[in-house]
């Protein structure tokens, strides 16, 4: 149905020309799902933009042909392309909220595309739009028709986007990271929905994702892209069990899965023995009856409802939950960026919740509890170099100055594997993985006893995630730190944590040693989380 031959795309930038896609060929058959898997910068999204002819300014298709159902998309006029987009080929984007117009009712947005492609008249648009919303399994579609995007959850917004994409019954759907940023149970619901709809309607689909596990579950064929080239193509199961290309093998290895240890995520040649970490009996952190209530428009909102837990010295505790479960609020209270409404936080026997967060920077315990933030880019001051970010806690809390400070910064960079020359760079000159390392170096600079990790790998490519997770394991063994690891990804928690807490709507619903919670979940919610996680086929040779 769609055939791409020798496509190459180049962008003009200030530093000269960048070849984003360098001669790729692929085919999508009717009713089949093709997965394009690759890490950031591999050119997977650019490929889809090129075939829809919606490349950013400066981007240009250099060579190759794109043929859809006998139409040469490269030669088609802009007018023809407008008819094809939405009518024949539709697209779902990464961030559903950004893809919807925030000030228009979602029903009207569905109507727009129907009317644009003459699939509906003004009179029956309303009924057809509601039917389209029902098709994506939106409950009470007639009422949702009048909602604005901000009134709907992320998963609901993505359903609307899918409804818009499918409203005109296109033959090909391009889904560009459709579930990034969605919760794991929502991800499953959305992917199942897309899978069912494409199957029912016999549509072709291109699923663009960085998650090999997800692709293997929903695709008939997978192509793996790297640096604008296709390095491997084949059946998902075969890709996993018998990857031919070294890069595919690296990706397969790096995908967290049941039965793999943390070192298994690394390429075989760089694997070393996993260092053991000692867990002492002495509790380092004890949280008692912690409550956080926010004043809301319609009455107070209880974000955290009286939770208690403890972390032993040297232990790693996983805090798992979906968005809105209160896990971030809990971690922010523990790290003393927020004040609890009531409850105690005992650190080394001392109630640190007694000191208000606004005054906690002078507390002697400040250096003992540090945090690695979720978004490494956002957590670094764009105006400061990597070195200045790492030096900040040393200069402010440890009062280090001059050459001693520089030496310590260099030592920390060494420890987290950040090459020295990168220290003088600004955040925007660093890659995602390098920024994550800077964030970790800053957090461990004062050798804290407790490190709070708020989804530290959520924004990273899997191969970088593998490296960062292993770095965290090494640091834990070296420095004897305790971790509070906040995550929504159970597969990652399983690799790193001794015990796990599962939070839902501000309450702890499940807790216990990681292995027993994961293998024999006692709570239905835990079970649904585990089932929702993509289960990539296990490679034979680990």
């Amino acid at each position, binding site marked *: 149905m769609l055939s791409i031959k020798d496509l190459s795309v180049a962008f003009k930038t200030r530093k000269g020309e960048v070849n984003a896609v360098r001669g790729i060929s692929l085919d999508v058959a009717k009713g089949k799902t093709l997965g394009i898997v690759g890490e950031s910068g591999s050119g997977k999204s650019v490929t889809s933009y090129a075939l829809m002819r919606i490349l950013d300014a400066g981007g240009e298709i250099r060579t190759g042909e794109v043929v859809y159902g006998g139409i040469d998309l490269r030669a088609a006029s802009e007018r023809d392309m407008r008819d094809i987009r939405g009518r024949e080929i539709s697209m779902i984007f990464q961030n559903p909220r950004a893809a919807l117009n925030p000030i228009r009712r979602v029903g009207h947005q569905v109507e727009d595309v129907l009317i644009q492609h003459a699939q509906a008249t003004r009179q029956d648009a309303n009924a057809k739009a509601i039917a389209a919303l029902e098709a994506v399994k939106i409950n009470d579609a007639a009422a949702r028709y009048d909602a604005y995007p901000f009134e709907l959850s992320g998963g609901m917004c993505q359903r609307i986007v899918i409804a818009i994409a499918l409203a005109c019954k296109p033959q090909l759907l391009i889904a560009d990271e459709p579930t990034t940023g969605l919760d794991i149970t929502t991800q499953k619901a959305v992917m199942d929905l897309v899978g069912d709809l494409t199957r029912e309607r016999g549509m072709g689909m291109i699923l663009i994702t960085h998650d090999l596990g997800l692709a293997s579950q929903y695709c008939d064929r997978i192509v793996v892209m790297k640096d604008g080239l296709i390095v491997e193509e084949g059946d998902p199961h075969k890709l996993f069990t018998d990857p031919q290309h070294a890069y595919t093998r690296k990706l397969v290895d790096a995908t967290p899965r049941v039965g793999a240890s943390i070192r298994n995520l690394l390429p075989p040649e760089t694997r070393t023995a996993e260092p053991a970490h000692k867990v002492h009996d002495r509790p380092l952190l004890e949280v008692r009856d912690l409550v956080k209530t926010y004043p809301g428009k319609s009455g107070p909102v209880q974000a955290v409802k009286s939770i208690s837990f403890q972390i032993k010295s040297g232990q790693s505790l996983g805090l798992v939950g979906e968005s809105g479960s209160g896990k971030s609020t809990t971690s922010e209270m523990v*790290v003393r960026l927020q004040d609890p409404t009531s409850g105690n936080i005992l650190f080394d026997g001392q109630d640190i919740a007694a000191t208000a967060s606004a005054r906690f920077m002078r507390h002697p315990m400040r250096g003992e509890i540090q945090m690695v933030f979720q978004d490494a880019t956002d*957590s670094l001051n764009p105006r400061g170099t990597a070195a200045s970010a790492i030096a900040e806690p040393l200069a*402010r809390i440890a009062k280090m100055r001059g050459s001693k400070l520089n030496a310590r910064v260099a030592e920390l960079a060494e420890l987290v594997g950040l*090459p020295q*020359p990168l220290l*003088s760079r600004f955040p925007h000159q660093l*890659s995602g993985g390098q920024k994550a390392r800077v964030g970790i170096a800053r957090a461990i600079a004062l050798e804290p006893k407790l490190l709070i990790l708020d989804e530290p790998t959520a924004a990273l490519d899997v191969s970088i995630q593998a490296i960062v997770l292993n770095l965290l394991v090494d640091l834990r063994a070296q420095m004897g730190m305790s971790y509070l690891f906040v995550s929504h990804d159970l597969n990652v928690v399983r690799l790193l944590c001794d015990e796990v807490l599962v939070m839902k709507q501000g309450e702890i619903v499940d807790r216990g040693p990681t292995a027993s919670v994961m293998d024999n979940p006692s709570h239905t919610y835990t079970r649904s989380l585990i089932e929702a996680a993509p289960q990539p086929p296990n490679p034979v040779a680990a």
Partner: protein
Amino acid sequence: MADMTASTPDTTRRKGDTTLGHIVYVLRDNPVTMLAFAMLAFFLGCAFFGPALVPYDPLATNAARALEAPSWDHWFGTDNLGRDVFSRVIVATRLDLTISVAAVALSFVIGSILGSIAGYWGGWLDAALNRCLDTIMAFPLFVLAMGVVAALGNTVENIIYATAIINIPFYARLVRAEVNIRRHSGFAQAAKLAGNSDLRVLAVHIFPNSLPPMMVQVSLNLGWAILNAAGLSFIGLGVAPPTPEWGIMVAEGANFIVSGEWWLAVFPGLWLMLAVFTFNLLGDGLRDIVDPRKRT
């Protein structure tokens, strides 16, 4: 993008990494910026050395050569008292630039402080400050400046204060918005964990990030401030004759346009226009210089 443990990028500092190197890069990259900076250098030169270089004393009258058209002796002609217009235009640069730079600096500092406080702490402080600024904005700004000068007295300092007051709301609002979007950012929280007090987080980490858009505002404002000062002088408030000042010179010269002596008003007006033009062109360049993200 790929694995960075193995790669060891070049250790040499690239040229664009130093501040001076970056400025040179920005100037080279954009010829308009280059032109703006060249013109700024010219005006600054006039302000510093003008009085020493001009051919005539700007205050010396010469009744014998009054109202002469531009010639080789008097490039911009002479006025009704026989004073050399060229000398007066050049000498006036210092006064006009002083007024605008001082006024903009004052409103920049006060506006930044007010805006930072409102944006960071929010709440009733924010609401109160915003209503005060709204009150200032509610007046026609030039009329407000007239009122201030008329009330405080006709001196250069008071023109500066008046110009500063009418510009404070623009800075305060801009800074407020820029600070507000960053107050919960990761790097602000990380700075708190590193032992910074709220005030330090605000001053050292958050506020400097609002500099790039501020620079655009500053350069536009420098132009407005000159126009404002000239405008006040034009209507007789502010700088008093016989001090050379572009606004007064245009005002005085305007009387003679009808009778054909156009050079009295045109040359100071032209200089005023060029100065405003320079500052307006300067904006993008200044922004690029203070924005670290441009250092790619």
